[in-house]
């Protein structure tokens, strides 16, 4: 088992004929992900990736013909919100939106429509997810993973890779690694992913990689304090030394007026009994300290 993606994943890639879409679809196929369809309006009837993936004009058609149940979006920012809505309209249950640079206000109605449909959106501006040994969706390098039982959730891209690599190097495998994305408005939060991990029998420990800005880490910590007692957990928060009032890149991390600081987040996590690492490389040791034996 795993969360969000696994052996049962039947993926449609929206924007499969674009440069990014094609490159990462190839990586996903090589990792073993079942890409059952591609979708690019106007390219219906073609086949992508050396004829391995049929391309459809609409997601609805892809779903009808191939039974796709998960979507991964590599569509430019201007069209990405519509791409998410199309996937939801076609009955896709889990949508990963990799696209970065989507204006935040564009996402407000989208996350609401997704919620009302009972579906799930991960991202936008997220690296995707990997369930090692089963499937990877998105752009996370497959090579950093190892099969195992630690769930990893992160707002960041490359920082996630850093943390996962550190665990793999220490011999600790992962059930699923999820990058939820660093934009201000995202479909799936830390809290949502913690709840999924809590319900997953294969996930025995959890690593949370947060950063300054917002209050999602605090909310996750509060929930974990109540519902995840006994589950070994470790965390890392980026931006402990970031100066106030500066926006640190497109990730949307910003501290202002003393809210959303690293210190507040660390305090909240530690109050919930979660060990917080000073460097991603310390995460494996902290997990062990927390009692993880996997």
């Amino acid at each position, binding site marked *: 088992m795993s969360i969000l993606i696994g052996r049962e994943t039947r993926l449609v890639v929206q924007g499969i004929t674009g440069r990014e879409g094609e490159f990462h679809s190839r990586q996903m196929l090589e990792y073993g992900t079942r890409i059952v369809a591609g979708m690019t309006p106007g390219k219906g009837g073609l086949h992508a990736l050396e004829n391995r993936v049929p391309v459809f004009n609409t997601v609805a058609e892809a779903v009808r013909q191939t039974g796709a149940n998960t979507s991964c979006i590599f569509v430019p920012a201007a069209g990405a919100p519509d791409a998410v809505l199309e996937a939801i309209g076609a009955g896709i249950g889990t949508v990963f939106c990799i696209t970065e640079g989507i*204006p935040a206000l564009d996402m407000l109605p989208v996350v609401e429509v997704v919620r009302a449909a009972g579906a799930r959106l991960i991202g936008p501006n997220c690296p995707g997810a990997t369930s090692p040994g089963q499937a990877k969706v998105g752009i996370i390098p497959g090579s950093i993973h190892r099969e195992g039982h630690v769930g990893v959730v992160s707002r960041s891209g*490359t920082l996630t*890779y850093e943390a996962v*690599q550190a665990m793999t190097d220490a011999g600790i495998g992962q059930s699923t690694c999820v990058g939820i994305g660093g934009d201000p*408005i995202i479909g799936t939060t830390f809290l949502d992913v913690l709840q999924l991990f809590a319900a997953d029998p294969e996930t025995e420990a959890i690593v949370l990689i947060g950063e300054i800005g917002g209050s*999602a880490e605090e909310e996750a910590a509060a929930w974990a304090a109540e519902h995840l007692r006994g589950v070994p957990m470790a965390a890392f928060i980026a931006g402990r030394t970031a*100066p106030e009032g*500066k926006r640190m*890149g497109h990730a949307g991390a910003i501290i202002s007026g003393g809210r959303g600081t690293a210190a507040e987040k660390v305090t909240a996590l530690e109050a919930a009994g979660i060990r917080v690492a000073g*460097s991603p490389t310390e995460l494996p040791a902290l997990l062990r300290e927390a009692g993880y034996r996997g």
Partner: protein
Amino acid sequence: MKIQEADAKSLLAAQGLPVPPWAVARTPAEARAAAERFLAHGAGRVVIKAQVLVGGRGKAGGVKLAGSPAEAEEVAGRILGMEIKGIPVRKVLVGPAAVIVKEFYLGAILDRASRRIVLMASAEGGVEIEEVAKATPEAIHRVEAHPLLGLLDWQARELAFAVGLAGPHLRDFVKIAKGLVATMRANDADLVEVNPLAIIRESGPEGHVERLACLDAKVTLDDSALPRHPDLEKLRDLDEEDPADAEARHYDISFIHLDGSIGCMVNGAGLAMTTMDLVNRAGGAPANFLDIGGGAKADRVSAAMRLILADPKVRAILVNIFGGITRGDEVARGLIDARARQEREVPMVVRIVGTNAEEAARLLREAAFETAATLDEAAAKAVAAAGQATGGAA
């Protein structure tokens, strides 16, 4: 992106909101001329406000009244000579001083937690709202705009009643509150604040009238949306901008100048912050935050190197790349190329892992770069190198 008060007021006025007139002056003489006009049109006094993008200008003496053109010129001269939090004041806003009956706070923000536009209002206007929020959180009232329909009239009315507005001000408040949301949408702003929103008293032909007016305005724009608002991009205040910022933007690099001595080049914002944290932890201080983004090619690496080296305080450089979309060999080639052309010799520690890391390692080895296997090791080496470069402790 932050914009100046005067520009923010233009955006509010464009949505039909009641903003009293104003003028922008870059010299004391321009301020005097503007003051003359407003005083001739019935204003008792004028207000002169420093136009800077940092907060706290009032406390710093950047907001003053003047009763005559001569006084306006003198006051403007003083303010235009000031620095506020290190930023020289290059412009002032001049406008008629309003007779304020009561001040309110009204703000529309994009709220991450609720994933809604949230309107906040308080009868405690005119002061720092963060302080109100800390001291008396119950004095701040909030409603979440409908995610698909926007702010509804009844929601705006609830806010109005909560802050004690009634009678003729009720309808105007509804328009203003909806106007704030309209301003957000029209410009892809993530914050639109009016503080104070005030009941002001004006004398007209039929005696005194009281009405609501937006006396100050603060707007921040969503950087991701600027490409579709070319007119707003023009509002960027280049006066206050570090010249390096423009070059960084040109190459799609996120760059923030800091005070330390170790230049950082990283791919990904979270990893870049982590790199800074680890430099600090190793006893050093980063000279910048720099995220070269995903899929960076050699030219972007060269540009990043130029940005870092333009800072004379930089004594060592730490390059930390975890290849995913970004190919390590591309970065290595960019570094080799950049070093060949750079004017100043600075020690550099390079760590490249992930996609094409082996090829990168070979290139770096051949070019005799100092490398590191882990981020902790890279930080320690960079701090040590910076210490040696300055001839003492980092």
